């Protein structure tokens, strides 16, 4: 198989990892929303942790995007 074709396939497979980040972000925001609707007065105090969890989880999706981009462009 040609190297360029293998790189393109590898980049596509690497992007599957972003699905995991999507599941994680959905869990974070869904649980935050569920908790916030149960106890709206406590919701604002946890916003910082929400954003922190978002950034840390999103970074893992970014890693797989990075692998895909490195395969494509280097």
């Amino acid at each position, binding site marked *: 198989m040609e190297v360029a074709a293998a790189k393109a396939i590898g980049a596509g497979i690497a992007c599957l990892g972003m699905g995991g980040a999507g599941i994680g972000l959905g869990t974070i925001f869904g649980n935050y929303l569920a908790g916030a609707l149960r106890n709206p007065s406590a919701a604002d105090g946890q916003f910082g942790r929400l*954003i*922190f969890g*978002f*950034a*840390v989880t*999103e*970074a893992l999706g*970014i*890693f797989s*995007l*990075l692998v895909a*981009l490195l395969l494509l*462009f*280097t």
Partner: protein
Amino acid sequence: MSNDPIHQFHITKLIPIDIGGYDFSFTNSAAFMVATVVATSAFLFLTTSSRGLVPGRLQSLSEMSYEFVASMLRDAAGSHGMRFFPFVFSLFMFVLVANLLGLFPYFFTVTAQIIVTFALAALVIGTVLVYGFMKHGFGFLKLFVPSGVPAVLVPLVVLIEVISFVSRPVSLSVRLFANMLAGHITLKVFAGFVASLSALGAVGIAGSILPLAMTVAITALEILVAFLQAYVFAVLTCMYLNDALHPGH
């Protein structure tokens, strides 16, 4: 080659300097690091020099950034941690301003270079190690033995804790680097769609509105990410410093 999305991260030598076979050239990366430091210092110095009792907009912005980092550090590491405030505040402001400066067109993004973020992370972990051993001696190693673990499990838990500690500088640096790199490449790729679509004629120009709108939306997301990653970097630094201050949990 200006259509290459990686091209924006190329380092060029502005003033070539060569001392004893080593390359000490003043590069565009160094220039933007200097610009970041100058911009941060000038902003903080000029906005607080009036020392108004009732702060204006800019003065309250710099006071808010001070209070933001101070409360972050106090929450994570307690009042003992405040001795590291200048360190954490400099790190936070450097990363934030470098991220935001990189968003301007044709500007170089310092934090999209793995060596820069790794140097920052190594500085953090080095501070944690040196201060931890200075303050607690070998008691600092209690960090790797959480209290309340059954004796049978201790070797396994210590192994896991050591691996987690060793991977900290890697994850800390790669997180910031990868976010910045991927964000800027995504921006460039979508901007490239605008150019290549509008070369197709009238239909292409009408269709290129979509990637243009996407570019605007991604720019907004990147401003959020620029702030968030600086915040995450500072919060994790606070947590690691807390380990150096209180190793026994």
